[in-house]
């Protein structure tokens, strides 16, 4: 059983469109992290959300932590080809990092 379920698994959209990807669990987390992985590279941290209901913005990316701290979402406004990649949510336990199944995003020019 995967601790962190992400949806959708694959997403292909046109440049300029908006999208939202989700990270869900039945567990409560003290914090969640979002990473982006480009082809041939390792994942890179985008953001850490800590407080239930918290919203963080990173340029065109908006991250939200659910009120109950069981889920998180990533919304991208006006997607660009440079946003293409694998988006992973992760739980930092203090000793380990557990990663979700990932959403593979392709933005078509």
């Amino acid at each position, binding site marked *: 059983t*995967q601790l*962190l379920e*992400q949806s959708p*698994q694959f997403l292909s959209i046109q440049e300029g469109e908006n999208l939202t990807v989700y990270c869900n669990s039945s567990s409560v987390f003290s*914090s969640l*992290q979002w*990473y982006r992985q480009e082809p*041939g*590279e*390792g*994942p*890179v*941290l985008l953001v*850490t959300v*800590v407080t239930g209901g918290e919203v963080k913005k990173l340029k065109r990316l908006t991250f939200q932590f659910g009120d109950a701290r069981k889920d998180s979402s990533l919304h991208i406004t006006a997607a660009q080809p440079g946003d293409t990649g694998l988006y*992973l949510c*992760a739980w*930092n336990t*203090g*000793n*380990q*990092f*557990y*990663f*979700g*199944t*990932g959403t593979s995003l392709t933005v078509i020019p």
Partner: protein
Amino acid sequence: DAGITQSPRHKVTETGTPVTLRCHQTENHRYMYWYRQDPGHGLRLIHYSYGVKDTDKGEVSDGYSVSRSKTEDFLLTLESATSSQTSVYFCAIRDTDRGLGEAFFGQGTRLTVV
């Protein structure tokens, strides 16, 4: 750049042979991790280390062993490679200098077992 180097970057090996992957870091981080990445599974933890000679199992540790004799090196060994171990392997460190802690990854090793 967290100064993480994985070697080799690519390897093809035969079933039943031993394989060792190396992860080298230059910044003296205490925690190091080995993950494997497969389609539909995200990143799964194999083993991790919290200091020299201190290691623990992750969720997919069967068929793998690790060693850490120096702070900077974390080795992953497949004692007898199987086709199910064909994967991309990532080494990571935990940077505790950044807030709640951030994982920095190497560039990965693509292993094919034929």
